[in-house]
C-alpha cells in the first residue's frame, strides 16, 4: 500500500542538508523583499495561512494523521485573539498568546479524543469536533455571530511599537512566521520527530519497540493545534477581523488543499501551497462560486496525478529534499 508520504529510499546525501539551507535562504530573501513589490497585506495573510498549513503538515506529513478539523484551532485562536485585543484591551503580543493558549487547550481535548481511533475515523472525528465548535461559535455572544469581531485594534507591540504602520506589522508577522517555521523544522529533525516518522511508517512496530505512541501522537497533535493557533491569532490582528469563515469546515478543507498542492510531508510545500491557493482566490474572486469548483478540481487532479505536490515533484526531479 502506498503511503501518504513516501519514505526516502536513499541515504541522505550532503546535498540534502544543503538543498534545505539554500531553499530556506531563498525563502527568507523573497519574503524580505516581497513587500516592496506587492501588497503587504496580502503577503501577511499568506504567511499566516502558510504557518497554518505548515502546522497542519506536521500531523499529516510526519505522523500520517489527517485532521479534517484544523479550522477549530485557527478559528478559535482568531476569536480569542480578537476578543482579548478589542474588549479586554490586551496588547497584540498578549492577544496572540491568549489565542494560542486557547488553541492549545482545544487541541489537547480534541486530540485526546481523536487519537482513540485510527485512519479514516480520525479524520471524521476531528471534522465532527470542529463542527461542534463551529456551532458554539455561532451561538456564543462574544463571537458576534454572523458579523464576527470587526475592527480589532492592532495596538502597540510591547506597548511601544505602533503596528498600524503596514511595514512594521509586516516585520512582526515575518518574524512570527519564521519562528514558527524553524520550530517545526526543529521538531521534524529532533529525536521526537524521528519517533513520529516511525509511527507514520509502522505504528505497531513503534509500539513493540516500547514507544508509547499515543503520547507521541497527542503531543504532535497539540503542537500542531498550537501552531495553527499562532497563525489564527496573528491573522486576527493583521486583518483586524475574526469571523465564522475561519472556524467553519471549508477552512479545514482549504488548509488540506494548500498542503496537498504544495506537497504533503515536505518542508517548504505548505508555504508554496498557501501562496498558490491564496493567489488563486485573489485572482479568481470575480468569478464567484466557480472558485469552489476549481478548488474541487485541484483536489481531484492532485490526488490522481500529482500526489507529491509542487515541491514534492520538484524535489523528486532534482533528487534533493525540500
Amino acid at each position, binding site marked *: *500500500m*502506498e*503511503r*501518504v508520504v513516501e519514505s526516502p529510499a536513499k541515504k541522505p546525501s550532503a546535498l540534502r542538508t544543503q538543498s534545505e539551507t539554500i531553499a530556506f535562504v531563498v525563502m527568507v530573501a523573497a519574503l524580505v523583499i516581497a513587500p516592496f513589490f506587492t501588497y503587504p497585506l496580502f503577503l501577511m495573510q499568506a504567511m499566516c495561512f502558510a504557518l497554518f498549513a505548515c502546522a497542519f503538515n506536521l500531523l*499529516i506529513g510526519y505522523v500520517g494523521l*489527517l485532521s*479534517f478539523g484544523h479550522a477549530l484551532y485557527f478559528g478559535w485562536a482568531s476569536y480569542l485573539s480578537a476578543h482579548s485585543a478589542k474588549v479586554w484591551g490586551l496588547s497584540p503580543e498578549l492577544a496572540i498568546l491568549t489565542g494560542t493558549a486557547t488553541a492549545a487547550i482545544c487541541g489537547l481535548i480534541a486530540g485526546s*479524543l*481523536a487519537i*482513540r*481511533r*485510527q*485512519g*479514516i*475515523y480520525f*479524520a*471524521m*472525528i476531528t*471534522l*465532527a*469536533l470542529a*463542527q*461542534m465548535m463551529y*456551532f*458554539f461559535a*455561532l*451561538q456564543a455572544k462574544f463571537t458576534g455571530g454572523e458579523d464576527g469581531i470587526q475592527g480589532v485594534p492592532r495596538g502597540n507591540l510591547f506597548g511601544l511599537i505602533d503596528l498600524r504602520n503596514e511595514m512594521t506589522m509586516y516585520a512582526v508577522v515575518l518574524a512570527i512566521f519564521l519562528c514558527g517555521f524553524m520550530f517545526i523544522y526543529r521538531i521534524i529533525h529532533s529525536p521526537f520527530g524521528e519517533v513520529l516518522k516511525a509511527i507514520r511508517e509502522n505504528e505497531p512496530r513503534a509500539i513493540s519497540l516500547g514507544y508509547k505512541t499515543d503520547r507521541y501522537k497527542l503531543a504532535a497533535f497539540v503542537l500542531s493545534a498550537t501552531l495553527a493557533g499562532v497563525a489564527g491569532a496573528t491573522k486576527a490582528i493583521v486583518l483586524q477581523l475574526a469571523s465564522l469563515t475561519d472556524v467553519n*469546515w471549508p477552512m479545514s*478543507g482549504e488548509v*488540506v488543499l494548500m498542503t*496537498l498542492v504544495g506537497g504533503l510531508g515536505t518542508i517548504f510545500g505548505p508555504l508554496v501551497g498557501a501562496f498558490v491557493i491564496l493567489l488563486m482566490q485573489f485572482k479568481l474572486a470575480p468569478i*464567484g*462560486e*466557480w*472558485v*469552489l*469548483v*476549481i*478548488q*474541487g*478540481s*485541484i*483536489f*481531484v487532479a*492532485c*490526488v*490522481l496525478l500529482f*500526489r507529491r505536490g509542487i515541491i514534492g515533484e520538484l524535489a523528486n526531479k532534482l533528487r534533493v529534499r525540500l
Partner: protein
Amino acid sequence: MFEIFGIPSQALFGQLLIGLINGSFYALLSLGLAVIFGMLNIINFSHGAQYMMGAFAAYLILQYFGLGYWPALIIAPIIVGITGIIIERLFLQWLYKLDHLYGLLLTFGLALIFEGVARNYFGSAGLPYTVPESLQGGQNLGFMFLPNYRAWVIAASLTVCIATWFVIERTRLGAYLRAATENPTLVRAFGINVSRMITLTYGFGVALAAFAGVMAAPIYNVSPQMGSELIIVVFAVVVIGGMGSILGAIVTGFGLGVIEGLTKVFFPEASNTVIFVIMAIVLLVRPAGLFGRRG
C-alpha cells in the same frame, strides 16, 4: 391535550417526529457510507453532495419533464447512481491501492465541485418542492397531528434500510459482497467479477443517498448546501455506530435522530451539537463505537 414533564404533548411528539425524520436520513446515509466503505475502503465524502444531487434531480425532472414525485423517486436515484458508476470508473478505481486518506480527499474535491456547480446555477437560496398530492394532509392521532408525508418518509426509509440489510446479510448476492469485502483475491479466484461488484456497490450506495435526497426535497428546501451540513453529522453518526454492522448503522441513525429531537424540546441550545457530544462520550467510553468490531 396533556403535558409530559411540563411540555405540551403536541410539542414533544412533534419534535419526536422530526427526530425520526432526521433519523431516517441519518440511517439511509450512514448505511450507504458503510456499504461503500465495506467494499471500496473509501469514505465517500461526496455522499452529502450526492444526496443534494438527488433532490436537485427531482426538482429538474419536475421542471423540465413535468414528472412528479413518484417517478422522480425512481428516476433520480438511477440517474445519480449512474453518475456514481462513472465516478468510480473514472476516478476511484485508481485509488484502491493507495492510503485510505486519498479516497477521502478525492471525494471531498468532488463534493466541492458538485456544490459549486449547484450554487452557480441555482444560487444559495432554497428552491421549493411540494409534497405529492396523494400524501398531503395528515392524521389526527389524538395526542398529535401526523402529516401523511412524514409518516411515509419514516416508513419508506425503514423499508429500504431493512431491505438493504436483508440483501446483504441474507441473500447469495450479499454473501458474495461480504466475501469480497473480507478477501477480494479469493473471491476473484472463484470466478466472480469483483471489480464490477465494486463499481455497482458504489453506484448503489450513491443511489441510496439520492433516494434520501428526493425524500428530503419536500421537507427541507432543495438547496446546494443541504448535503454538506448533513454529511458532517452523518460522519459523527458513523463514528458512534461504527461501520462494521449494517443493522448498527440503522439503529444508530434512528436513535440519534430521536435524541436530537428530544434535545430540541428540553434544551434547544444544544440541539445542533448533541450528536457531537454523544460522539465524544462514546469515544471516551467505547472507543471502537457502539457496534464497531475493529478500530
